[in-house]
């Protein structure tokens, strides 16, 4: 499958007179293939919005290469802009115009028919409120309007920066099915999000960013599998034997975390090894199951942003990977 979006070695340093330089992107790489729904994940301030802005020509990078729909950007941006629909960060619109006015002005500027304006308003569920001023909208309604504006040009690539922000559960579900539908119709969707359960549900693949560098990427299943790390949970016939069993496994080279009436064992090659090792010493496993991982725990592990009791984590405390090549390959 051809790449619809390709970024390599992207660098961006923000300079401000007061606070000096801040490196937001530090050799970031990303690839999105055609027809996917791609999740773009990272803690606050990790550089997601910066990446999307750079890609869309709103900010100038300090280094790196980017292509959109096979064309180098920002040079070819005027040619591809008509095929890329995007919302960046919290959607902002002129507060005194109605949704309909806002979209029809964009449609005029972009040569889109008026009919399409009505279509997208219907699609995002704003039909009946389209004549109200945007000032009177809730956050979720503004978000819907933003999605509508991105869909207006029937893009081949749709880029959404935290589209679920402010949506109600119904809205999130609608957004999910909307995106699935768009992907099925051949559109490629890139969405940055914090709602990881959501991402896990709708994304085919993900890129995880931390402190301006890629820390993991690939199909969701692969990323999860790699981070299950072959971990298993072990229960014994008698719970009293757990501590002895733990010592045996540690001595044999596994990593063990006690958890209530069971052990979580990682760093083992095959689950069967656990059974064998314990059986050799006369302890019998009553239950052996692979550790279930979800994207959230993988995310927290990779970015090292899991909350620690009694500590207030600061926004820039997240994982720093050695280099852009150090990610988790597929």
């Amino acid at each position, binding site marked *: 499958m051809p790449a619809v979006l390709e970024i390599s070695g992207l660098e961006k340093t923000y300079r401000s007179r007061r606070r000096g330089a801040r490196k937001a992107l530090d050799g970031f790489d990303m690839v999105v293939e055609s027809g996917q729904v791609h999740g773009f994940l990272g803690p606050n301030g990790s550089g997601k919005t910066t990446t999307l802005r750079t890609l869309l020509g*709103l900010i100038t990078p300090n280094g790196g290469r980017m292509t959109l729909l096979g064309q180098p950007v920002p040079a070819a941006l005027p040619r591809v*802009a008509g095929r890329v629909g995007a919302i*960046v960060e919290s959607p*902002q619109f002129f507060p005194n115009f109605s949704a309909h006015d806002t979209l029809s*002005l*964009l449609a005029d500027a972009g040569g889109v028919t008026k009919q399409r304006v009505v279509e997208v308003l219907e699609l995002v569920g704003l039909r009946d409120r389209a004549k109200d001023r945007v000032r009177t909208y809730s956050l979720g309604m503004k978000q819907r309007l933003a999605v509508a504006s991105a869909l207006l040009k029937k893009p081949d690539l749709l880029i959404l920066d935290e589209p679920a922000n402010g949506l109600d559960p119904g809205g999130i579900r609608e957004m999910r099915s909307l995106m699935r539908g768009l992907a099925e119709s051949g559109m490629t969707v890139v969405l940055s999000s914090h709602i990881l359960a959501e991402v896990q549900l709708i994304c085919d693949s993900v890129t995880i960013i931390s402190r301006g560098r890629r820390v993991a990427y690939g199909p969701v299943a692969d990323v999860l599998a790699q981070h299950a790390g072959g971990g298993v949970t072990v229960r014994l016939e008698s719970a009293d034997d757990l501590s002895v069993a733990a010592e045996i496994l540690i001595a044999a080279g596994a990593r063990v975390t006690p958890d209530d009436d069971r052990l979580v064992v990682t760093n083992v090659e095959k689950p069967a090894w656990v059974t064998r090792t314990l059986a050799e010493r006369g302890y019998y496993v009553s239950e052996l199951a692979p550790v279930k991982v979800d994207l959230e725990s993988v995310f927290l592990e990779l970015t090292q942003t899991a909350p620690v009791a009694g500590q207030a984590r600061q926004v820039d405390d997240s994982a720093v990977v050695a280099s852009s090549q150090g990610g988790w390959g597929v």
Partner: protein
Amino acid sequence: MSLPKAEVRRLFKRRVTRIFLAITVIGLALFPLAFTINSKPATAERRAAAEAQAQREFELATAQFEQMRTECEAAKARGETGLDDRYGPDCGAGYGPQQEWFSAQQYMDYEFNFRDEFQPSLAVLAGILAMVAFVVGASFVGAEWHTGGMMNLLLWRPRRVPVLLTKLGVLVGSMLGVTAVLGALWTVAFWAIGRFDGQLGVLTPGVWQSIGLTGLRGVTLVLLAATIGFCLASIGRHTAMALGVGIGAIVVSEIGLRIVFELLRVQFGDRYILSTYLVAWFEKSMTIIDYRACNFVNGPCTPPEYVVTWQQSSVLLGAVLVLGVFGAVWSMRRRDVT
């Protein structure tokens, strides 16, 4: 792909534009209204009445004068002295009221004269429209930046400089249209006052040409104000930036500098003040007179003068224009949109 069309719609959809235009139209309408109310055309009856009144006043004054003379002569006959101090030499003979002091003109009501008064009124019109154009221009692009509308637009039209210049072009074009329409209405209104409620005066082609030229200078000023407002707001990415600079310039130049020059007794200090150049642009030249150099106690004196020409004004205003547009384009090209 019609960005200009979309921008024209956006400009006139904006509340700032609509409200300001409405207020401007109402405000401007007050001027011709005030003139029609005050102007009384010189009809034959009014003229006759004025002549009669002039005659009455003359006769009254004459009678008073004659009575005074009689008193004086009587006093003289009684042999009183010091009469010259009270009545003037020879009982004020030869100082009596003259018929020509009491012209009918003095007793006529105010009458509007198109030829004499229309041209100065254009300066008022241009001044008001220039201020409105400055605010509308600033808010047109300032609000766009501030609310994120500009970012949205750039996602559709990534060529930033053409986008900015299209907006500027739309603004200037629209302001030209508005100024032309209001200018035409203004002219028609005052012409009608002159025609039906006053006097037109002798309107030679030369007079019309002169009015036309003044109109053109006014239009230039309005468009310049719109452009400067637009450029300042675009550089600052906020309407308030332009308004702040505008108000700041007025305070510093028109008040601050004036006071400082007065204190330091700078000769021809006015030549460093912005409004001098605006006036000079409008009136073709402005003469600054240094009355301080004269000491009238020692008799008559011709104070030194300094003339600011409209050519000098156009150099200054042109430089401001170039600087503004260049700054706006440069910041559009180079600065990140965040």
